[in-house]
């Protein structure tokens, strides 16, 4: 029987897994025992529902409800003095839970400390934009939408940012194919010639490194030059290679390696 490959996760998988391997965890601490973050987490817990909190590799990590995201980021900015939003992105857990994890990374310049605010949303659920608080969220959230298709409410200009406006699919999702999909191979052809010309033009070759030995439309071989489009499956004639220097063209000489010299220093 053919091996079943899941369609909702097309990422590369490790080809060998030890059955008894248990992956270690990064060290995590309780933030209330950390002198840098104990005050922050105390104030945050008084005002919002915190689902989970720990300190991991110099970061205060808090998990909150998705509907609180705007207010929590505002609280971090205004009350806890985290004045810079350095990163917003999503993690795709659609295959496991049908959810996205959104995280906001914030920086407190005075206290030299960083926090990561995480929340989870369902696939079609929208999340409130934090752009009114931080202008940097304008582009981060657009990128998040472009790459994951996460819907953002009240964003000033919700459009794709890196991919073309008419692109289909969201590239960083785990179910996005790794080598271009059915749509990608016709993208340029449809745009330039129209869908009706698909039969004439053929799909776009998306493997840039592919060389077809018998393709005389795109490739020609030195020493075996044949007319454009000729069929060479049954062999091709040799054409001699002529170099200008051999024919005695004025002012052009053939390089003699013995007379050249390597410069040691500039």
């Amino acid at each position, binding site marked *: 029987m053919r091996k079943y490959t899941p369609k909702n996760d097309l*990422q*590369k*998988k*490790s*080809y*060998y897994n030890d059955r008894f*391997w248990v*992956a*270690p*965890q*990064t*060290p*995590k601490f309780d933030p209330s025992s950390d002198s840098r973050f104990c005050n922050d987490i105390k104030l945050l817990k008084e005002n919002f529902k915190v689902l989970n909190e720990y300190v*991991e*590799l*110099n*970061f205060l*990590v808090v998990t909150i409800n998705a509907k609180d995201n705007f207010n929590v980021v505002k609280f971090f900015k205004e009350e806890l003095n985290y*004045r*810079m*939003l*350095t*990163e917003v*992105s999503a*993690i*795709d857990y659609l295959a496991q839970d049908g959810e996205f994890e959104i995280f906001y*990374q914030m*920086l407190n*310049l005075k206290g*030299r400390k*960083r926090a*990561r605010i995480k929340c989870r949303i369902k696939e079609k659920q929208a999340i409130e934009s934090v752009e009114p608080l*931080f*202008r*940097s969220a*304008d*582009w981060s959230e657009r*990128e998040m939408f472009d*790459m994951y298709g996460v819907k953002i409410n009240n964003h000033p200009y919700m459009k*794709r*940012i*890196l*991919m*073309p*406006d*008419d692109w289909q699919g969201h*590239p*960083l999702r785990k179910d*996005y194919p*790794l080598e271009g999909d059915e749509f990608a191979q016709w993208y340029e052809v*449809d*745009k*330039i010639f*129209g*869908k009706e010309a698909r039969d004439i033009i053929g799909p776009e070759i998306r493997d840039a490194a592919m060389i077809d030995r018998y393709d005389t439309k795109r490739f020609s071989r030195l020493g075996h030059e044949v007319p454009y489009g000729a069929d060479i499956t049954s062999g091709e004639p040799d054409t001699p290679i002529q170099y200008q220097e051999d024919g005695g063209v004025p002012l052009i000489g053939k390089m003699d390696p013995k007379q050249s010299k390597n410069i040691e220093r*500039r």
Partner: protein
Amino acid sequence: MQQTNRLKPFFENINFERDDNHMVVNFGPQHPSAHGQMRLILELDGEKVVKAHPDIGYLHRGMEKMGENMIYNEFIPTTDRMDYIAASANNYAFCIAVERLIGIEDKIPRRAQVIRTMLLELNRIISHLFWLATHALDVGAMSVFLYCFREREHALDLMEDYCGSRLTHSAIRIGGVPLDLPAGWIEDLQKFLDKLEDNIDMYESLLTENRIWKMRLEHVGVIDEELALSWGCTGPALRGAGVKYDIRKEEPYEIYDELEFDIPVTDTKDSYGRYILHLAEMRQSKRILEQLIPKYYESDTQLMAHAPQYISAPKEQIMTQNYALMQHFVLVTQGMRPPVGEVYVPTESPKGELGFYINSKGEPYPYKLKVRAPSFYHTGLLQDLLVGCYLADVVTIVGNLNIVFGEIDR
């Protein structure tokens, strides 16, 4: 609405023919001053910019997707292609993130730390020289471009002597550096540094009091503290706004906490201030490099950390010991398996805060990899920064922010 089946110029929400005095200008994507493939759509009232809309994505290669489908060591050469002006800074930002994730950050040998710091600072000088060259060329000072490129060429020679390539270095590995410095490299570096001081003086004499240079840069592209923090500006753009925050000092990594250097800050907040800042930073990098030379000679010769679970043993051991060979084979074919967890390590690249967010599930491939590139936010800033300035200043501002499209589009 766009017709996707015909090639037609398509500008949604942009009307080129207008009834008022406004004009819409398309700047780029193939503009020599855009420093890469950036398209700016500018709405002009006379010569004043009323609205600016940067359009990016022309160099998008899907590096984050590539990273999620590669083992950790495989990804290092790809990071070279992000900020291709200072490739070692990207290599380093990725490697330090993985090292912190697997918990070997404090096991990096001393000599590797010294060499890494040297490479990072040399890359900072290379990047700043390139920035000054292209920025001056944009504004109209052709000869500065030639002088800076001459100097940068010597720095690239040093990089080439060390790792064999000029732009895509891949000179830093997870766990250390692959090679020791070649014989005579330190002497060459010292010669380069001696000349650099004079050369920076020369750039200053050509530009700092130059009337045209001052007219083009002073009071142009003013970024105040509020705007800089709101847009997540880092590096020279943040310090140019008067905020003294340098990750090398505030959240030190490698051996920056042992080195003496100053953080230049300006409070003029304009392009001219940031120009002065870049020159001052080059002098500080020179100062750091000079302190590193004696530290190099004092260090032991080990180059890669000893962590057999994650990092291959040295070549001699692989060739002589069976167990080291087995470890090496597993690490090369399957890749290392870091602990489950998330990591983000900020580093001060020449452009600003560069960091890799890695979410590991204990697999040889990262579950999620996100690059926090400084230029991405600096380009977004153009939306707010260009409004109200003149069309001629657009080139100054774009050049002054030191954006590189390899890391914006990734």
